[in-house]
């Protein structure tokens, strides 16, 4: 792993390398280098399996984080490759040509975050949400509670409590 990381640092200028747990390394790379890096890992380093692609909305810094988890089934190593893309022009190079099933992850991310993957098969078709025409729901600027209240006829009489406070009041009514 050490060698590999060194190699990657030379070749792809990866940074922020951290050991998250045993046999699993987190690293960050420029978004434009992701396909080359993944292809290198797949072809030469034995990371044959794309485990998943996921996304995080860093609204504070105006960026989306995309995480690609790849796995080497022989050595049982995992790599988590993080890349940051701009929130305004949310678009990323598709890697469906490396792993066919990547298109499904990308389709889901497109639906949930609105990150576009041009060229990815069926990327515009609805995945979980049918007929969604609002802000992509996993973006943090989407207010799901407000949406729910506007759309789904909330039943009146519902009370929301802080569970800790509520249970404390129920169980230990005497304590202050």
């Amino acid at each position, binding site marked *: 792993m050490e060698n590999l990381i060194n190699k990657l640092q030379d070749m792809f200028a990866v940074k922020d390398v951290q050991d998250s747990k045993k046999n699993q390394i987190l690293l960050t790379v420029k978004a434009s280098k992701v396909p080359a890096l993944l292809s290198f890992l797949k072809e030469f380093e034995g990371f044959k399996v794309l485990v998943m692609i996921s996304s995080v909305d860093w609204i504070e810094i105006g960026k989306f984080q995309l995480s690609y988890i790849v796995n080497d089934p022989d050595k049982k190593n995992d790599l988590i490759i993080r890349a940051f893309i701009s929130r305004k022009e949310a678009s990323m190079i598709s890697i469906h040509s490396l792993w066919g099933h990547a298109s499904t992850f990308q389709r889901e991310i497109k639906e949930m975050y609105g990150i576009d993957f041009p060229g990815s098969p069926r990327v515009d078709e*609805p995945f*979980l*949400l*049918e*007929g*969604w*025409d*609002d802000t992509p*729901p996993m973006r943090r600027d*989407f207010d*799901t*509670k407000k*949406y*729910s*209240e506007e*759309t*789904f*006829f*909330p*039943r009146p009489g*519902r009370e929301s409590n802080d569970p800790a406070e509520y249970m404390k009041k129920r169980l230990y009514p005497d304590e202050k």
Partner: protein
Amino acid sequence: MTEELKDNNIEQVEDKFLAPENRKHTVTGPEGEIIHVDPLQDYYCNERPKAEDPRNKIVEKFLNWARAESLWVLGFGTGCGSIEIPPLLSPRFDAYRFGVAMRATPRQSSVIIISGYLAVKTLKRVIRSYEQMQNPKFVIALGSCTINGGMYWDSYNTINRLDYYLPVDVYVAGCMPRPEAILAAFDKLKTRIKEGRAEGANEYVEKFDWYKANQKKVIKNWNMPDYNW
């Protein structure tokens, strides 16, 4: 998209949620004639549902008894509650002895159990299945999610109140209710039927427009006829 659709001359429409196969298109007949097809009009019966009035009181009482003692449940699991149904039929709970049986087709079923949270996507299928059941038909709603959204109360994709979309006969609270609770629900339902109060099907017809409006508010890609015969 299949070859079949590719050959057709599909019209572009404003409604972006209308599925390609449901858009108006033209096909060429064997004699070369052009045939205009409007799938939602042509493939489906577009009549409004009719209320079926109960018959003569004594007869109806007898029939209601039969209906109550023979509850055929549509095997449709919508949420996590569907895992609670199989134990009902196991030797421990043995719902058969109450005349409950599972059917695989809505045509032959008289009860639909909404077993837990309903995503919008599932709601659409539930509505279609419910409308395809025959009058009289009954709805049992399981779990908090169907009552007020439960733990999904603020979800962008899960409905909060089932009774805005379907006429519910029995609610079973809990997350999740145990099989005993469901048996109790059946008992309650039987009572309601025998008393002649379980007229959900007719109620649905009478408040049809209201139900439809509620349903269409959440289901944006409607893509089916207003009433699924």
